[in-house]
């Protein structure tokens, strides 16, 4: 269980906004435009921005949910949720204890980390061959 489930929550009726969220949305638009034109996207680190709770809610609502949801178990759970704009991913990394350690909006066709690394593929192949040879 993670202690994040029992934080003291902000009780304000209107979640305060810094006004930075719309700018982030425009930045995402820029990155997506570049992805469409040049094939190169980018990422925005949400935790390094001066975001107030309202900003995040606002941005989440605007981006919405898309078709793909990927979860990755690598030194803690990571989730990759495609928004309703294909190519725009909401990425959350957690540590083995389950606390969020990084949160980004990534603009890419498939997040890098999802694609199997050729070295891992080779290692995997070797391991699989060992397994197969063990069959005989």
């Amino acid at each position: 269980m993670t202690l994040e489930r029992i934080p003291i929550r902000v009780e304000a009726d209107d979640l305060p906004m810094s006004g930075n969220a719309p700018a982030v949305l425009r930045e995402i638009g820029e990155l997506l435009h570049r992805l469409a034109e040049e094939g190169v996207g980018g990422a925005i680190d949400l935790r390094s921005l001066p975001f107030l709770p309202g900003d995040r809610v606002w941005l989440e609502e605007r981006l919405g949910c898309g078709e793909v949801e990927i979860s990755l178990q690598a030194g803690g759970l990571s989730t990759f949720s495609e928004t309703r704009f294909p190519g725009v991913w909401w990425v959350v990394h957690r540590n083995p204890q389950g606390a969020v350690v990084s949160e980004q909006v990534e603009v890419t066709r498939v997040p890098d980390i999802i694609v199997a690394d050729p070295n891992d593929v080779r290692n995997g192949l070797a391991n699989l061959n060992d397994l197969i040879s063990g069959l005989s």
Partner: protein
Amino acid sequence: MTMNKNAKLLENLEWQGVSRRTFLKYCATLASLMALPPSAGRAMAEALAQAKRPSVIWLPFQECTGCTESITRSHSPSIEGMIFDMISLDYQETLMAAAGHQAEEALHKAMQDNMGKYVLIIDGSVATGLDGAYSCIAGRTNLEALREAAQGAAAIIALGSCAAYGGIPKAKPNPTGAVAVSDIIKDKPIVNIPGCPPIPVVITGVLAHYLTFGSLPELDKLGRPKAFYGETIHDRCYRRPFYDQGKFAKSFDDEGARKGWCLFELGCKGPVTYNACASVKWNGGASWPVEAGHGCLGCSEPDFWDAGGFYKALSMPADPLKMTAGAALAGAVAGVAITVANRAKKGAAKAAHETTTLADLEK
């Protein structure tokens, strides 16, 4: 467990069964914590994968072992992973198995073998009183040990507020003459990682930066990595909206405290403290002081211990007013003195009064 000391980092990780994805994720996270652009995660991963583990020598001076405690509770990556995978920790009294002469030999061997290349980590302040006699290890003062170890170091990390600023040993009246590492060593690059204790991931981040880019990260005026100490606790605090609305807890058990209002009036030093607690948090990301309901003590700032009380709001006087009563007396004395002088002057003017006659109306 046998391990090739000269192997590349990733080879060791692979050997331990750490996947590339895990490593990449770790690098991405670290980059994000260091406010590097997200793309730096991959660059860091590639550089670290090829990096050789640097030799690290860790010397404890006037300290409480809190910094070591903090680092050994580092969660990302685990201390074992970090120590054995990223660096070659060649001397650390508290953690090492060796003791006594054996330990001393290990230290000198590590220094000789890696002359000019090792990273020196210091925790604890340096006693300078009585020529440093207040704190000795193996019959040598910390002052001597520091000077010697610093000579062969590529860089020095002053870990914790004591090493960075003198810390609690330096608190008034500073009986041991405690000073910071940077007060003694002037000719080596020094990174201060203050905090009482410091956030564990900061040291990982600094080492990762050093390994990735071959240089120390950008530092602020106080020698702290800007990536972690670039903003105040207050700037990143989740209770900040309450501050902006003027909602303050007035005591630790009132309605405001229960609702999680701002702790400014209970003495929170968040507005003047540069550190990453609010975003990195503590204990595996579980919580941090303000989230636990206590104001920030400002432990990563110089002389935090003497900065006027942990429970006094920043807008309050730090010290009791010592001179005011004396000043009131001095004011009264000055007033009475000038009164006496004035009366004498006026009296003399009166005594010298000559009745004005018509003739006096002319010059």
